[in-house]
C-alpha cells in the first residue's frame, strides 16, 4: 500500500508542505506571526518559552523546536531569535539543517528591531516558499508514515468505541511497515502492566514501568492527587470514574502490537512499529511532543469534543459517541459512535479510520486544518527563573 507524499532530501516523507517560522524565544513570537501573515505557505509557531529556563527544561524546549523544524511536513524553516535568550537560535537552526532542508535564521537584536526583521524575514520566507513549491507529491510506501495517536476530552465510551477502533487502524498501519506513537503517560497509570507485558524486551519493559512511576511520583511528591487534574471534570461528567478507568481505555488506541521502544518527550523514534512517548495528559502538549518526534499525522479521539489541531500536522478527529458527532460535526472527521449504537463493529470503524489516514496523508484536509486550528504547547518541566 502507498500514499502520495513529499519526499525530503533526508529520505523522510512529508504529508504537508509548510514553511515553518520558528521563534527560539517568546520575545521573537510576534515577529514570526507578522512574517507568516505576509507569505503564503508559511506558518508561525509562537510559544511562550526559550528563556529563564533551567538547563533540563531549556533542553526540552530546544529539542521540541528542533523536532518541529525537522518534521518532514516542513519543507523549509526560518528561525527567528532575539539575541540574548537561553535557547540558542543558531543551535536550533543548525540541528534542523542536519535534515538537509533549507534553513535560515535572523536575530532581532542584530538586524535592528521588529520592522527590519519582519522585512528581512518576509523576503527570506518568500524565497523559501518559491523553493518549497517545487516539491511535488509522489507515490511512497506506508513505512515512511508515523501516526501519533491521542485522546482528549474522553468519556466512558472512549475505551469502548473510538479508542479500540483507532487501535485497529494502528495495527493495520504497523502491518504495512508504518510507525505509531502512543503517548500520554499520565493516562497509562493503572494500565502500565498491560503495556509492560507487550514490551519487545526487558529493557523496554523496565522503561515503560519507569516513566509511569516517574509521572505518578512527580504528583505525589508535591503531596497532590493526580485526580485533582485527571480525570478532568468533563471526563467525570462523561461517565469516567477513575484515572485507572481512563487509562485502560486510553491505551487501546495503540492497538495490540509489541512495544518497540520508549521515547522521551519530542524524541524521534529509531524503531518502526508501535513506540511509546513520555508525554503528559495535556492534549496540546502531547500532540506537540508527537509532531516534534516526527509524526506527520495525528489521529485524535474525543468523547466530550475538542477542536485542538496542530500548526504543521493534520489532526483527524474521531468522536466516541454519535451525540457528540451530531453536535460538533464542524470539528469531527469520523464518528465511532456507530459502535455504541451497534450499527458498526470496532473492526469496520478501525478500517474506516485507516482509510482516512491514507487519504489525509495524500492531501485531504482535516476539519482542524480547514478551521485553522494550530494549537501548540511545549511541555514545561521546570519553573521560570
Amino acid at each position: 500500500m502507498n500514499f502520495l507524499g513529499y519526499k525530503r532530501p533526508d529520505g523522510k516523507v512529508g504529508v504537508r508542505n509548510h514553511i515553518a517560522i520558528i521563534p527560539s524565544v517568546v520575545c521573537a513570537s510576534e515577529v514570526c506571526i507578522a512574517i507568516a501573515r505576509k507569505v503564503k505557505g508559511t506558518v508561525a509557531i509562537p510559544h511562550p518559552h526559550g528563556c529563564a529556563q533551567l538547563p533540563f527544561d531549556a533542553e526540552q524546549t530546544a529539542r521540541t523546536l528542533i523536532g518541529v523544524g525537522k518534521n518532514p511536513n516542513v519543507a523549509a524553516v526560518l528561525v527567528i531569535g532575539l539575541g540574548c535568550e537561553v535557547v540558542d537560535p543558531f543551535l536550533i537552526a543548525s540541528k534542523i539543517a542536519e535534515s538537509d532542508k533549507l534553513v535560515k535564521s535572523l536575530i532581532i537584536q542584530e538586524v535592528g528591531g521588529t520592522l527590519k526583521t519582519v522585512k528581512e524575514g518576509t523576503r527570506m520566507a518568500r524565497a523559501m516558499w518559491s523553493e518549497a513549491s517545487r516539491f511535488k507529491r509522489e507515490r511512497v510506501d506506508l513505512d515512511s508514515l508515523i501516526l501519533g495517536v491521542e485522546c482528549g476530552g474522553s468519556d466512558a465510551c472512549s475505551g469502548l468505541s473510538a479508542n479500540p477502533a483507532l487501535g485497529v487502524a494502528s495495527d493495520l498501519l504497523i502491518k504495512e511497515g508504518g510507525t505509531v506513537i502512543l503517548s500520554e503517560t499520565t493516562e497509562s497509570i493503572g494500565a502500565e502492566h498491560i503495556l509492560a507485558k507487550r514490551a519487545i524486551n526487558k529493557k523496554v519493559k523496565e522503561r515503560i514501568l519507569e516513566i509511569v512511576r516517574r509521572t505518578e511520583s512527580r504528583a505525589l511528591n508535591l503531596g497532590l492527587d493526580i485526580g485533582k487534574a485527571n480525570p478532568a471534570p468533563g471526563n467525570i461528567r462523561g461517565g469516567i470514574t477513575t484515572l485507572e478507568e481512563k487509562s485502560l481505555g486510553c491505551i487501546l488506541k495503540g492497538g495490540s502490537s509489541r512495544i518497540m521502544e520508549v521515547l522521551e518527550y519530542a524524541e524521534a523514534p529509531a524503531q518502526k512499529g508501535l513506540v511509546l512517548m513520555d508525554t503528559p495528559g495535556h492534549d496540546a502538549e502531547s500532540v506537540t511532543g508527537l509532531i516534534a518526534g516526527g509524526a506527520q499525522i495525528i489521529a485524535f479521539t474525543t468523547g466530550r469534543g475538542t477542536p485542538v489541531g496542530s500548526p504543521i500536522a493534520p489532526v483527524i478527529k474521531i468522536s466516541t459517541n454519535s451525540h457528540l458527532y451530531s453536535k460538533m460535526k464542524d470539528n469531527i472527521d469520523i464518528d465511532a459512535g456507530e459502535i455504541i449504537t451497534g450499527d458498526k463493529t470496532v473492526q469496520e470503524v478501525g478500517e474506516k479510520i485507516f482509510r482516512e489516514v491514507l487519504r489525509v496523508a495524500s492531501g485531504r484536509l482535516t476539519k482542524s486544518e480547514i478551521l485553522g486550528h494550530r494549537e501548540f504547547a511545549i511541555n514545561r518541566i521546570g519553573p521560570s527563573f
Partner: protein
Amino acid sequence: MKPIDADRKIILSHPTDNVATAKSEIQPETILFLPKGRKIEVREEIPFGHKVCLRTIPKGGPVIKYGERIGRAIRTIRPGELVHIHNVVGERGKSQSKNKG
C-alpha cells in the same frame, strides 16, 4: 478488544466485569438481560455512558471494567445501581494521606 453485547441497552467490555456502560440513558426499573440468562433490575437512572453495577460489590471490593481493576467501592454497591464517583474511588495517583480507608 471486542465489546460483548449483553443487552442492547448496555456494553460489557469483558466477561469478568462487574459493571457495564449504558448505551443510552436507562430508566429505573428497567430489566437488563445479562449473559447466562441472568437479569437485573436497574434501581436508579443511569445516564448515557455511565456505569451500572451487575454484581454486588462489597465495601472495599474491586470495581472491574475491561477485565481490570478500575477502583475500589467505598460502600456496598448493589446490582442495578449507578457506579460512579459517589461510591467508587480510584487507587492510583493518590497522595498518601488520602490513600487510606
